[in-house]
C-alpha cells in the first residue's frame, strides 16, 4: 500500500516518456551488442584484455558469446589467412540480422605487415566491414571507442527495416 500520494499535476508530471519504436529498439540493441569471440591472432589478446577486469567491456553491455547465433557483432581480431577465409564467411552468414563487423588491427584491415602468399589482404574482401580500427595491436581503449562509435551508428539506423546489403571491397 502506498503511504504517500503523488500529485502528478504539480510535481513534475506523469511518469511517461514518449519515444518512437525505432529509438527504443535501437537503444536496446546498441546497449547490448554481443560480440562473437573471433580471436585470430595477437589482437585477440587485446580483445580479451578489454573484456577483463581493467577495461571491463560489460559496462557497454558487450558480452562475448562463443556462438555466432547469439552474437550481433563480429570483432575480427587478427590476421585472416586464406585457409581460414572460408570459415569467417560461414560464421558471418550464420549470424542473425542485424549484424555488424569491426575489423580490428592492421592485419584485418589491409593485411598489415603480412603481405605474403598466405594472408588475405583485408577481411573486407570476404565480409562487409562497418568499422576499421588502426593499430598493431590496437589498445583496448581503441576497441572500446570503436564499440561506442558502433553504438552511435546503430542508433542512427532504422530499426524495423532489414539492413541494406553492405558493400564488399
Amino acid at each position, binding site marked *: 500500500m502506498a503511504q504517500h500520494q503523488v500529485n502528478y499535476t504539480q510535481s513534475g508530471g506523469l511518469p511517461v516518456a514518449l519515444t518512437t519504436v525505432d529509438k527504443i529498439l535501437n537503444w536496446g540493441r546498441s546497449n547490448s551488442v554481443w560480440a562473437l569471440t573471433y580471436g*585470430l591472432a*595477437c589482437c585477440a589478446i587485446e580483445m580479451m*584484455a578489454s573484456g577483463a*577486469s581493467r577495461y571491463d567491456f560489460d559496462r557497454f553491455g558487450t558480452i562475448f558469446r562463443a556462438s555466432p547465433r547469439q552474437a550481433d557483432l563480429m570483432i575480427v581480431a587478427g590476421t585472416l589467412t586464406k585457409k*581460414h577465409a572460408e570459415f569467417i564467411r560461414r560464421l558471418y552468414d550464420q549470424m542473425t540480422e542485424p549484424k555488424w563487423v569491426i575489423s580490428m588491427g592492421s592485419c584485418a584491415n589491409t593485411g598489415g605487415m*603480412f603481405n*605474403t602468399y598466405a594472408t588475405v589482404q583485408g577481411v573486407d574482401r570476404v565480409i562487409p566491414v562497418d568499422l576499421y580500427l588502426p593499430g598493431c595491436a590496437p*589498445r583496448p581503449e581503441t576497441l572500446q571507442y570503436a564499440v561506442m562509435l558502433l553504438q552511435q551508428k546503430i542508433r542512427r539506423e532504422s530499426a524495423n527495416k532489414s539492413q541494406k546489403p553492405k558493400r564488399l571491397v
Partner: protein
Amino acid sequence: MQQTNKLRPFFENLEFERDDNHMVINFGPQHPSAHGQLRLILELDGEQVVRAVPDIGYLHRGMEKMAENMIYNEFLPTTDRMDYIAATANNYGFALAVERLIGLEVPRRAQVIRTMLLELNRIISHLFWLATHALDVGAMSVFLYCFREREFAMDLMEDYCGARLTHSAVRIGGVPLDLPEGWLGALAKFVNELPSNIKDYEDLLTENRIWRMRLEGVGVVPPEMARSWGCTGIMLRGSGIEYDIRKEEPYELYDELEFDIPVTDTCDSYGRYKLYMEEMRQSVRIIQQLIAMYDDTPPELMAHAPQYISAPKEDIMTQNYSLMQHFVLVTQGMRPPVGEVYVPTESPKGELGFYINSQGEPYPYRLKMRAPSFWHCGILQDLLPGTYIADIVTIIGSTNIVFGEIDR
C-alpha cells in the same frame, strides 16, 4: 570416396559419416578454447576420444619466407607477432641469434635490462596462461584476477617501450633505451607484491575440489612421450625431466643469477599448473637480483660494432662518418659474415630457437624458427586418445600453445 553430387564433409582420410558407432566431430578452428586457431578432428566412441588429428596452418602468415626478403633489423618487429603473449622472448631469441652470428658483445647494462624484460615477460605469459586455462576449466574469477595483475606488468612494459603487446624492446646489439625515471621502483613494487597475489590464486585453485578433479591425472605425459615428441619447457619439466636452457646453456646473465628450476614427476596437468606458479616466483626472485645489479653498470646500451650497429645518436648527429655508416646500415642493412647459427633460448613456453643461414648478404638465406608450441601441439594426437571429451579443453590449455608460433 568423395562424391561430387553430394556434399559430404571429409578431412584427409577421415570419413565423417560412418556406419559404426563412432562419431567424428570437428573442433575449431574457431573455438573459444582452441587458444587461437587450432582445428582438431576427433573420432569419438561415446564420450571417449579414439583418434585426434590436429590440423594447423590457419594462422600461417609466411614469416620465414618474409625473413628472406627483409634486412635483419627490419625482421625484428615480425618476431613480435610469433608468440604474441611474450613478445620480448621472441625479439630476444632473434637478436641473440644474429649477435652470435656476427660475434657481438652486448654491454652489461643492456644485458641487465634484457634479462629483466625477459623475466617480466615470463610473468606476463604465465599469468595469461593461468587466466585462460582457469577460464577454460571454468574458474572465471581467476581470469579476472590474473588480468588485473597482468595489466600492472603491461603498464611497466608500456612505460619502458611504449607498446603493450608488440614490444620490439630488444634490438640486435643491445636495447635502444635506458630505463625511464622511477621504472625500477615501480618494477620492484610489482615484483614484491606479486608473490602475495600468486598465493591468492593458489588459495583459489590448488585445493579447490573442482580444479583438482579437472586437472589431476588428466593429460598425463610420460617422460618417454615427452622426449620423443621433442617437448621442452614446462611440458618436459612436468614429466620429471630437469631441463632448462637457462641452466644447460646459459645465455645473457643467467649464469650469474640464482634461481631454481622447479620439476615435478606427476606428469599431469595439475603438476604443470604447480610448475607455472613456481616459475613465476622464480622470475620474481630473478628480477629482484637484477634490480640490485642495475645500478653498478656502465651506461652503454648498444654494442660498439660500427660495421653492424649504428653509432649512438650523438655521434650520428655530430660525426660525418658515423652518419654515413648509419645511412648504409639503414638503407642496405648489415652484412653478417657467411655462416650459419642455431641459438636456443628458454621462452616461457619452452625451447625457442632461431636458425640463420647467412650468405654474407643483408638478407638471411634461410631463417628457421623452432617454436616450442609446434611440438606441444603435435603431442595432442598421442595425448588425446583415451581421454574424455570434457578433458580436451583442459589438455589443450595445459600444453600452453599459441598459434602465432605454431603456424608462423
